[in-house]
Structures are given as C-alpha cells and as structure tokens.
C-alpha cells in the first residue's frame, strides 16, 4: 500500500512562502493498493493536483476508476471536487463513500450538489460531470470492499458534528485516516472505542491541528492537539503516527516545532518505538 499526501492543511488553503515545505492545500490523501487500486480520501484543494497527475494516466483516456472516501462535508474537505479534472472525462468511474446523514446516500448527494449551486459554482450541478459519479453512504461497523481494499469506517466526534475515520487494510497491512477528530472532553485520554479502531495499525494518520496552548482559546472546534494524537497512537500500539491537518496560521517553522514537541511527548509517555512521520504535500509513504 502506498499513501501520498496531496493536501495536509486544515480549514482553508494557506498559500505563501512560509507554508512551502509542508504545503498549503487542504486535506487530500491517495492510497494505492499493491494491485494498483486507487482510493482517494477527502476532496480538499489537494485533489486538483492529484487529478492533474491522474490525467497523465488511464484517467486522461476515460478509463480510470477510483473510490473516494469522504470524512465529512466541511468546505476544506470538498472544495477540490469542482477542479478534479478526471470527473470531466466520460468513461471514468468514481464511487464516493461518505457520511450519509441518517444513512442516506440521497442526502449526501444533495450536500455535494449544494456545493455546485449556480450561486457558488459555474458547474451548476453534479450532473454536468461526464464521468460516472456514484454517491454512497458509507456503512459504519461492517467492512466493505473498495478497489480491492477492505475499508471500515467509524464516526468520530467533530465539534457540533461528526467526521468519519477510515481503516484500510490489504494483505495484513493497515492504514487508519482519522482527521478532524476532536473528543468533546478536550485533553481527555482517547476513548476505548477509538483505540480499538486504531489498534495495531501500521500507520495512523491523526488530526494534529493544534499545539495544546492554542487549543485553550479554540475550544470545541472538533480538532486534536499533537498530545491527543500521540496518546491515541501509544494506547493503540500503532507502528507509525502521521501528523496532519495543520492549522492554517501555522508556518513551516511552527509545524516543525509541533512535530518535534510530538516526538518528545511520545518519548516521554512510552511511545519511543513509534515512528513519527509528518505529512508533507507531495511526499509518499509505503507500508
């Protein structure tokens, strides 16, 4: 399994020289299976750049196929959709698995449709996509198959709402994506259910939006600090922890400091064995 980061930023894209090293695009991660199946997680602005890369492959000829896992529908996780070139090529096939409120794929489709409303987008409607674009409600609990990979999802608290976390498995290897997760009781240890979901993962990508001191005046926004992420990684005995969804105001130097503080926290709390990998736009990790 290969995991590549196309957007690692939270809330709103953050262009500028001081975000060059980690990147300023919002959430988008690709997962490629050993047999070449493609899963895309979240559709932040990073999706445009993934799409432009895919156009050089079978997607440019209308012969591409991918599943998209959507954690939730806040702007920073869907804004790239209208700029994803492969959806404008007939023949390409996409299945979007996302949080269907009340389990309804129709409601999820309505939400994505609302993004394309003519007041906001020149595309006017999803129906103007040329590719097949099927919207499905991701079933929580029971695993499902996508592009030859086994996916399990779990609903996590995210401020006043929830976001889905995904566990993706292939041949005994596992990758967990848990962005935009924030325990209502901020600073409390991770819940046993969350720990169970992350258990023994080869790679846990976890929300690390904040330093703990920044979270103090940004309560209940539904994000985690690097301490929350490290505590979850230690409790679940994961092998690698990936930091992700950096605050839009953090410069590269700030993120360096966050990553280094996370390393120290892991070391001081029994997580010395855990490898720490900061997510950076354009970089790839292999499991």
């Amino acid at each position: 399994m290969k995991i590549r980061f196309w957007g690692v930023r939270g809330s709103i894209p953050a262009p500028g020289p001081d975000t060059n090293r980690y990147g300023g695009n919002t959430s988008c991660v690709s997962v490629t299976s050993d047999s070449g199946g493609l899963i895309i997680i979240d559709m932040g602005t990073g999706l445009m750049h993934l799409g432009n890369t895919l156009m050089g492959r079978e997607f440019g000829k209308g012969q591409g196929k991918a599943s998209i896992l959507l954690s939730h529908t806040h702007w920073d996780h869907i804004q790239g959709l209208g700029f994803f070139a492969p959806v404008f090529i007939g023949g390409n096939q996409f299945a979007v698995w996302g949080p269907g409120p009340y389990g309804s794929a129709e409601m999820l489709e309505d939400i994505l449709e609302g993004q394309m409303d003519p007041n906001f987008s020149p595309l006017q409607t999803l129906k103007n996509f040329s590719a097949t674009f099927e919207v499905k409600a991701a079933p929580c609990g029971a695993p499902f198959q996508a592009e030859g990979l086994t996916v399990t999802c779990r609903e996590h608290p995210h401020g006043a709402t929830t976001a889905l976390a995904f566990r993706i498995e292939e041949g005994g290897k596992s990758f967990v994506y848990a962005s935009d997760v924030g325990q209502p009781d901020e600073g409390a240890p991770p819940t046993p259910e969350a720990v169970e979901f992350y258990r023994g993962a080869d790679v846990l990508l976890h929300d690390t939006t904040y330093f703990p001191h920044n979270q103090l005046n940004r309560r209940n926004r539904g994000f985690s600090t690097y301490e929350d992420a490290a505590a979850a990684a230690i409790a679940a005995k994961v092998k690698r922890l990936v930091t992700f969804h950096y605050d839009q105001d953090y410069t590269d130097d700030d993120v360096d400091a966050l990553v280094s503080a996370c390393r120290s926290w892991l070391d001081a709390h029994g997580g010395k064995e855990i490898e720490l990998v900061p997510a950076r736009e354009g970089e790839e990790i292999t499991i």
Partner: protein
Amino acid sequence: MKVRFWGVRGSIPVPGRSTNRYGGNTSCVEVRPKNAGPIIIDAGTGLRRLGKTLMEEAFKDGKGKASILISHTHWDHVQGLPFFSPMYRAGNEIEIYARQRDMHLEAVFSAQNRAPYFPVPLSAMHADMRFREVLEGTKFEIGGAKISCTRLNHPWIAIAYRVEVDGASVVYCSDTAPFADYLLGREFVTQAPSLDEPLSPETTAELAQMRAGVINLAKNADLLIYDTQFTKEEYRQRPHWGHSHPDDAIAIAREAKVKTLCLFHHAPLRSDDENDKILAQYREVVAAQNDKFDLVSAYEGLEIPLGDQ
C-alpha cells in the same frame, strides 16, 4: 487613497513554490480612503490576512467599519468571508454589497456558512452585518466614496465596481469574458462554442451595450483592475468560462483612457515566471503602440497610492 492587493488569483487558491511571488490567494482588493474604513472588493481567501491586519486597528475593539463589494458569489470570491476575523467581534459594522439574486443575498451567504459545510453559522458571527442588494447601474455612497457598477459577461452574472474617493478612481472589472464572441448568462454551456459562428443581432447588441457600460465605468480611471485569467490562445479554447485575456483588457483600457491597467485574477496554474513573461510581453505591446497607460500585474502585497494621501 491606497489600493492594496490581498488575493490576485482566480478559481481556487494555489499554495506552493511556483506562486510565492504573485501569491496563491483568491480575489480580494482593499481600497482604503484617506479618512475612512476600508472598502473591500471581493472576499476570496486573501480576505483572511486582511482581516488579521484590520484586527490591529479599531476592529479589535469592535469599533471598526468596513464595506465589502462582491462582484459575484462564486466560491473564489466569497470563500474568505467566514475567516474574516472582524466578523466575529461584536460592535464592528460590516456592510456586504452584491448583485441581486433569485434568493436574498443573506440567504446566499447563510447557505455558505452553515452545517454541513461550515461549523459556524452567520448568526453566530457577532458583528453588525448588513446585506445590500444592488443591480447594474445602481449608484450609492459609502462614507465619502462614490460607488457605481455595471454588468459583466460571466456565467450567472458578475458586476464591475468603480470607487471614487480622495480625488481618484479605481475600477474593478473581474470576472468577465470579452464582449465579442459569446453572451454568458444563466445557461450552462457544456462545450466550447464555435467562435466563427455569427451572433444574432440581439446578442450582438446586448454584448455591445455591456461593453459600453464597462468603457463608461472605467472612463479616465486612475486604475483599472481587469480579469486576465487567460492568454489569448487559452481564451479561444474556453470562451464559455467567463474570463478575459490581456489583449482585450488593453483594448478596454485604451478606449476608456485609464492611467494604469492592472492584470488580475491570474489562472490557478500560472506560475510566477509565466506571469512575469506575460507582463513583459504586453509591456512591449503597450510601448509599441504608444499607449499612454502604465501596465502592471497584481501580486499579493502590491500597494498603489492614488489621489490624496
């Protein structure tokens, strides 16, 4: 007054090394009269940083007053609004002007800022917010500034604004296609229309009227900011996207006798080096034709003083 650029990009923000010099934020321009609060044109992602700067002034204490003129409500022109810090401070007065739509302007902005798209609803932003609907041709005043507007050739309709204050004038003309080949409105155009097919007399007349409106709005302006997302060749591929190119902007600037023309709303994938090249190329064109105006290209942080300081 001073005109300062906070976001110069079209369509979608583009962080990355290749946009460091011109900037990757979407459209946002601040017009700052000598003795009044800012008149902001468009609320793209550039608005976030402007908001932070404003919070160092009266806005921090809830005593600030700003107006935002919106060309149209496509994402790249409104996305910064929920990240505009002064909106969250009670006491600040923020007036938002945009063209009348099918539903009330406040409903359009409420739809942008609510579950399941955004965690904070408009009603939880504590500034005193007022929405003012305008139509092309409407004239109004903000403080001592005189504002007028005219319609542009863009899907679902955008409008251009002229702001006159402190003895100077700035015209913001984004987003628009040229007024020659195709009339854009409410219809979704699935494929690039042929540029060789003759237009109906009605369409030709409507486009000509629109163009006359723009020339009139920009007449003798000290600064004309113009949508030049495309090169001429790119425009021919996508005449239905509602964006223009430097040759068209130069023709408008020449006819309206402006003093400075500013290229704006750069294509998302246009690198800094490509933008440099376009500017150099068209400076030669302007020089060769003895045009009287200066040609500049907008970048984040560019500040242009006009009139009384």
